[in-house]
């Protein structure tokens, strides 16, 4: 609420600022020629100074002055023709009211509607210092401690946590090692296998080697709905050159993906990009789940 009130106040302040000249009315100022004359007078004064300093002979100074005088006369001519020619004087009251209405309504309305499309009003700011209670942060600083504890007292949940910490710290090799321990301890845990595969892939700059592929296959065997597993199985196909197969798997995943899923955009992007690379239209590919057998 405070957020919206602040926005409204900001928009209102801007509107007031924009409307000020509209309602202040036209205070007459000097005409164009007065501005020109100011400069020409200044130039004349400079010539005087130059001549006085001996930078110009009196004749040169006189010629230079004559040039400026001519420009002054020309400016006056221009002013007279312009004044005679321009018949329109201002925009009138109605136009001014229309303008004021547009400024007062159009500007804030436009800003709010664009913000509605681009902004994330529901997300609070997350300054680092204010995240002292954030479990991730605490965990991150205590990763070493946790690793030591697990050494003495291994547990699947502990390794999962450790793997997550390493993963988020971009330490993928260590994350993979922790998840591998987790898969060993947890038995048939699809999420653990999937996390392992992802960590291994990330450790190789996103390339899914046989080891990682095996982990994903294992995860898929245990759970056929997990989005992450299906996404990476598709990616593996793509990396093996079978773009049609990859797109088929992703389109299958797309069917089960809610529109507002955070990865929906990325998934659609992958489908579009890989279809383009493969030179086919995505909708010519029938959705197909990954092979369970592999």
């Amino acid at each position: 609420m405070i957020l919206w009130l602040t926005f409204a106040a900001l928009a209102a302040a801007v509107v007031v600022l924009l409307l000020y000249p509209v309602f202040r009315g036209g205070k007459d100022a000097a005409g164009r020629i007065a501005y020109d004359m100011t400069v020409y007078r200044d130039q004349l004064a400079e010539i005087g100074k130059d001549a006085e300093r001996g930078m110009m002979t009196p004749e040169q100074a006189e010629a230079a002055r004559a040039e400026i005088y001519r420009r002054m006369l020309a400016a006056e001519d221009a002013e007279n023709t312009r004044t005679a020619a321009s018949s329109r004087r201002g925009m009138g009251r109605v136009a001014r009211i229309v303008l004021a209405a547009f400024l007062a309504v159009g500007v804030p309305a436009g800003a709010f509607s664009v913000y509605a499309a681009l902004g994330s009003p529901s997300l609070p700011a997350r300054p680092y210092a204010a995240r002292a209670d954030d479990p991730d942060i605490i965990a991150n600083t205590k990763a070493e401690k946790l690793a030591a504890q697990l050494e003495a007292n291994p547990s699947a949940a502990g390794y999962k946590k450790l793997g997550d910490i390493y993963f988020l710290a971009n330490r993928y090799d260590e994350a993979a090692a922790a998840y591998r321990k987790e898969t060993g301890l947890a038995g048939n845990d699809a999420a653990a296998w999937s996390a392992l595969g992802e960590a291994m892939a990330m450790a190789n700059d996103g390339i899914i080697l046989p080891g990682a592929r095996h982990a994903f296959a294992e995860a898929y065997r245990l759970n056929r709905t997990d989005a992450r597993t299906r996404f990476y199985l598709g990616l593996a196909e793509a990396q093996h050159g079978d773009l049609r197969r990859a797109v088929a798997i992703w389109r299958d995943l797309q069917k089960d993906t809610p529109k507002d899923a955070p990865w929906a955009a990325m998934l659609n992007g992958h489908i579009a990009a890989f279809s383009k690379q493969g030179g086919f239209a995505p909708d010519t590919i029938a959705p197909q789940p990954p092979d369970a057998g592999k």
Partner: protein
Amino acid sequence: MKKVFAMLPVAVFAVLVGFFIYRLVLIDHGDTPNLIPSVMIGRSAPAFDLPPLFDGQPHFAAKDLQGKVTLINFFASWCEACRAEHGFLGEVKQAGIRLIGIDYKDDPKDAKAWLARMGDPYDEVVTDADGRTAINFGLYGVPESYLIDKKGVIRFKQTGELTPDVIRSQVVPLARELSR
């Protein structure tokens, strides 16, 4: 006259923008402006005579290229992209093309271990320890592959990884034509 001169800047600028648009269109169509075509295409493979990776096997030299269509694949165990490419090399061999691997600036121990782990699709693997042969081929980096005809002339070069698409649509058809 004056008018023509006044048009000149906007005309020059329009041509310039035309170039930029065309370039961006090319990039958008998958043309990678950064790839430099090899000047070696259509020329005989440079002279070389490289020692084998595995002890006891023969050397491989430029003269051995005669009589058989060959794909020379430069790779290294330390190269990330080579891993991605490696799985598809089998297709090349299946198509009846002789496949020679040149292990580029690598520790033989690492290369052997790598081939043991990833599989060894090559007919022969030789080593280019100091990278001199690679430079003679005009190599930018690994992986790169050169398709060479029966007379030892370079016919095709792939800078970067061989993808299944490149193998199927370019390498195999060209090799077939060349073997005739």
